[in-house]
Structure formats: structure tokens, C-alpha cells
């Protein structure tokens, strides 16, 4: 067990190093001078440029530069944004939780809908229910996320006026920032009209969450359905049937566990797609998340922001998928003990 954890930790560290190296290289790969890309100073006088060059150790070796870059990263000194002039670390700390929050809710929602529906479809294989759910999932699968988000705005905000159009919270309310996750912050705060704020935040959340979750739900549904069909046709399920267990006993004692085991890593992989979709949806709903922020940075050629933002997002994805993988690796008895028992 310790060995497995160590191996995974090793892998994570290596992957993150490679990622950080890429983000370091970006300064050289953007058009223009590296120094200008890093600092934003294009026409400075000699002395100023030299001082800045020394700050970034530009006259040193490539690897030495990377070393200093790593040291700065670990110090929390991620550079300044061109556009706002604020430290990037605080900018990311402000925007990333909003994205994580949105994606997490979307993932939870799509698991809560996708898994049961997938089980129903798999258990009713080749019946009307199965075909109906499958065609629904094809529909959800093929609708582009940004288009769905626009349709939702058109329908529910502009036509019906049920939900607010953009943002995380109505401008009337001011919630002190503790964790950056809006719902948690509201719960923790000691404002008077807590429940009203909470409802407002939820109303803001619904549309973006739904439009991201639609796609992931259909994918989860399909993966689950496939896995359930395979599991329920496997020999041990038939054997359990032949031993006279009831269908419910079989499903709950043998079916669910065995069907979920192979698909959990696949679902964890969906987090990547989810985050990408979340970035697009954030722009449409003006959600103050990292996606919105990064796309603004790209528009404004804010190179340090792009560099660090990309690193932050990819680190998040890597850590998430790796930890889910590790969890499954530790839980699955088929993989845990390889040695055979002699009886």
C-alpha cells in the first residue's frame, strides 16, 4: 500500500515538473522578447532592462533560470498581471475556487443523474426504456455546450425570467470571502438574510451547472450502461442466479460494486472535459472563474497570466485524476495483492 502511494506520488511530482517546465518555456515561445513577455516592459532604458534581466536571471543558463522560476513558484511569487497589475497568485486564488465549485456541482449532479439512469438502461437492456434513455443521451451528447448555455439564457432568463442572467450573486448582497466557495462562504458568514442570499446564489448556480452537466451526464450514462450490461452478463452473476439468489440480492451484493469498479476512473477522466466545458460556460454566464479570467488574459495578451493560469488548471486536473486513480487502486482487491495464496 505504501509502495503504491509512493509510486503515485512519484508520478505526480514528475508530471508536475514537466508541466512547470512547459509553463517556463512559454515565456520563450510567446511572440516577442522573453523579457518583454515576462515583465510587460517593452521600451525601457538600458539600466531598467538590465535590472529586470537580473531579476529573472536571464543572463544565466537555461536550467538555472528554470530553477529560479521553480523557487519563485514555491514562494508564491507568481508574477504580476499586465492588465490589472495585481499579483497573479491572488488573482488565481480568487478565480479558481469559483471554477472548482461550478465543476464540482456539475460533476455531482451528473453522477446523481447519470449513474442511476445508466443502471436502469443497463438493466432494461434492449427494452423500450433502454432505447429511450440511449436516444436521449445521444441528444445530450451532440448538443454543443455553448449553444445549450445560450439557449438556456434565451429561454429561462430572457423569455421566462426565472433565473438571473449572469454572475455568482446579486449585486445587492456582499458576502465576506473566506474560502472562495460561495455557498460555503454564505453558510459560514453571519449575515442577517442568510437564507435569502443562499437562495439567490443557488438561482445563479442552476443554469451554468445544468448546461455543463448535460454533456457529462450523457457520457456517464453511456459508460455506466455499457458496464452494467457487461457485468450482468458475466459468469458470476449467472452463477449467482443459478444459486437461487433473488435479482435484487444479486444487483446489490454483486452487481453494483462490480459495475462501478471499472467506470470510476473513466468518470474521473470526465473531469477534464467538464473543466473545459466549464471554462466556456463561464464566459457565457460571466461567472468569475478561472476560465473566464484566462480567456480575458488571452484576449489581452497577458502572458504571465496565461502561463500561470495554465499551470494552475493543469495541476488541478492532474492532482484530481491521480488521486481518484490512487483511490481505486487501493480499493480494488483484484489489484491489491498480486501474490497467490497456497492452500
Amino acid at each position: 500500500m505504501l509502495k503504491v502511494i509512493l509510486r503515485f506520488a512519484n508520478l505526480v511530482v514528475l508530471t508536475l515538473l514537466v508541466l512547470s517546465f512547459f509553463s517556463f518555456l512559454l515565456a520563450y515561445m510567446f511572440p516577442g522578447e522573453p523579457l518583454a513577455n515576462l515583465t510587460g516592459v517593452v521600451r525601457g532604458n538600458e539600466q531598467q532592462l538590465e535590472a529586470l534581466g537580473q531579476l529573472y536571471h536571464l543572463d544565466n543558463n537555461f536550467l538555472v533560470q528554470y530553477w529560479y522560476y521553480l523557487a519563485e513558484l514555491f514562494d508564491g511569487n507568481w508574477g504580476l498581471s499586465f492588465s490589472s497589475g495585481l499579483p497573479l497568485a491572488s488573482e488565481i486564488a480568487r478565480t479558481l475556487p469559483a471554477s472548482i465549485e461550478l465543476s464540482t456541482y456539475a460533476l455531482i449532479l451528473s453522477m446523481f443523474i447519470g449513474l442511476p439512469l445508466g443502471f436502469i438502461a443497463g438493466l432494461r437492456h434492449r427494452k423500450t426504456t433502454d432505447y429511450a434513455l440511449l436516444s436521449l443521451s445521444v441528444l445530450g451528447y451532440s448538443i454543443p455546450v455553448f449553444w445549450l448555455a445560450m439557449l438556456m439564457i434565451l429561454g429561462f432568463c430572457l423569455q421566462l425570467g426565472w433565473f438571473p442572467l449572469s454572475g455568482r450573486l446579486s449585486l445587492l448582497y456582499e458576502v465576506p470571502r473566506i474560502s472562495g466557495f460561495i455557498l460555503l462562504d454564505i453558510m459560514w458568514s453571519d449575515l442577517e438574510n442568510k437564507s435569502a442570499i443562499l437562495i439567490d446564489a443557488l438561482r445563479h448556480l442552476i443554469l451554468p451547472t445544468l448546461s455543463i452537466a448535460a454533456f457529462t451526464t450523457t457520457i456517464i450514462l453511456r459508460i455506466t450502461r455499457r458496464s452494467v450490461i457487461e457485468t450482468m452478463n458475466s459468469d458470476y452473476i449467472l452463477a449467482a442466479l443459478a444459486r437461487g439468489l433473488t435479482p435484487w440480492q444479486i444487483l446489490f451484493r454483486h452487481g453494483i460494486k462490480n459495475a462501478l469498479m471499472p467506470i470510476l476512473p473513466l468518470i474521473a477522466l470526465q473531469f477534464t472535459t467538464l473543466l473545459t466545458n466549464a471554462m466556456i460556460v463561464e464566459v457565457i454566464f460571466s461567472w468569475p472563474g478561472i476560465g473566464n479570467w484566462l480567456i480575458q488574459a488571452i484576449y489581452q495578451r497577458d502572458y504571465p497570466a496565461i502561463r500561470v493560469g495554465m499551470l494552475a488548471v493543469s495541476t488541478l486536473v492532474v492532482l484530481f485524476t491521480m488521486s481518484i486513480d490512487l483511490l481505486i487502486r487501493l480499493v480494488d482487491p483484484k489489484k491489491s495483492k498480486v501474490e497467490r495464496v497456497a492452500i
Partner: protein
Amino acid sequence: MSLLDIKNLTLEIDLASGWVKALDKINLVINEGQIHALVGESGSGKSIIVKAIVGALPDRWRVTADRMTWRGQDLLTMSASERRKVIRNDISVIFQNPKNSLDPLLTLGEQIKELVPTYRLESFWFWQRAAEREKIAIELIHKVGIKDHKLCMQSYPHQIANDVCQKFMIAMALVSEPKLIIADDPTRGMEVTAKSQILKLLSRVNQVRKLSVLFVSHDLLAISSMAHYMTVLYCGQTVESGKMLQLRKRALHPYTQALLDSAPSFRKELPPKSPLSSLDGTIPTLQHLPIGCRLGPRCPRARKECVVVPAVRRVHEHYYSCHYPLHWDKK
């Protein structure tokens, strides 16, 4: 009284080319305390019969029978839950591949304890019941010849050897104290010592507990020493059935004869360097079944009449279905 009585069991499978009879009018009678061997080549439908008996067939296959009764109760007309109750209490199955028929994510102990029927438990509280289940499981594991019950119960199916796994499957089959054990090729792919252990175990179970055993196999050698009664199957048709000794002494159907001849140990005067006998050709696929007697194209004695399915004929306790049985020559 016969335990299981099957008459004209027919199973049709929907293939692209239309409905095909995978089993064609199978007859099988199993009496109490008897070891009944079901023999046939691979692909002759042995395992399908087993699945049809326990009802583990896909819904889209069509099963019909004139009679399929378990101690007088009709298995085909009873509801699914009644049938399951019968199977749960009276019939146990041991499968071909022991590892695949165990849940890979649960330990063996959990799986055997799950099968202990409630009526065998006396105590009321669940913790006492758990202990009782454990006791029953350990007892059975010892009975089938696994000494280290602790290790066995703790391990997962993939961790133990195939023959131990098969012994464990027999223990699982005995948990519900059944009347009939159906052993579907239990010694497949095992080496000789493991095989003879399993066979001995089964015949001991038969003798000690008065259990009937339906032994499905293609291994004549293994069967002949323990079975009382034998049914020979070819391509989904019952070819011949009768007492083991009688069949061995005087087979009436050319297929049975060919099957016996193909096992060298049954031939007494086999001169050195003589060719081993076998029927020409292979068993036909489901898409290309011959009409009439399905052995027709391969049968050395086939004649014009063989395109009609032969009726079942009977000589004392010995049933066969052939137009030109072997004993007619001798008249």
C-alpha cells in the same frame, strides 16, 4: 421416485438465419441417490441443458418441453420466484470455470456465508447468526478437503489455485443441503491428481448424503468409474441413455460406440501401432445443422431413412434413437 424428469426439452435460439433448435427433444430422468452422467462432445449442448434446468438462460431464447418436473412440480409453469426457491433449496450447480463464477470483488468467505439459508440458522440476533453462518461455512470447507479455512475464506477468487477453487465451489453447492448437484464439467483443465480428488469428493458426497449428481462431462474415463446411469448427447439430441454398465458392454447407437472406441483405455485388445479410431468430421455449427438424425453426415451406418428424426426406442431400461442400431446386425 425420480427427482428431475425432463421430456422433449426443446430450446430455440434466434440466429440471423432464423430460429434454430439448439436442443432438440432432450429426455433426461434423474433418480434419487444416483450419479447420472451426461456425455457429449463440446458444442453438443451439455451446458445449455444445465442452464435450462436452473433457468439461467437469456429471455429471448425459447424453451419448450412436454414435461419438466422437479419432484412432481412443473418447473416451466411455475413463477420465477417459486422456481428460484426450488433451485435455492434443492438444486446446486458447480460450474465449468470456478473462478469466473465467483464474484471477483468479494472474499470467498463472504460469498459462501451469503448462501447459508436462513432456515439453517437457529439464533435470533444477527451477530449470533453471523457466527453461525461462519461455523457452517468452515465445517463445509473442511469437508471438501480444504484444511486452511481461514486463509481460504480471506482470499479473493483470483488468489487461489483452480482446483482449490473448484473444491470450494463444491462446498458452496453443499451449503443449501440440496437434493441434486449439477456438476458442469467440474474437472475441466485440471491435472490428474486434482481431478481424481474432485471426482472422489463428488462420489463421496453422493454416497454419504444420498445426493443425486448430474455429472456433465466429455471425459468418459472419469465418468465410467463413478456414474450409475449415462445419457449420451450429440448436437442437441439425446442419442442413447441407459445404465452405465449396459452401455459400456453393449452400446446400441453408432455414436456411443464411436465415443467408447475413441477412448483407448476402453478397448481391451488394442494391438500396438493400430490407428486410434474417431468419427470423421466435426460437430456441425448451429447454422448448418443437418435435418433428421443430426449424426447423419458423420455416421458410418447412415442410410436414406436417416433424414427423418428417429423415434426413441427402448430395450428394457435402455433408450436409444437410431434407425439402424448396432444390435440389429447380430440378428
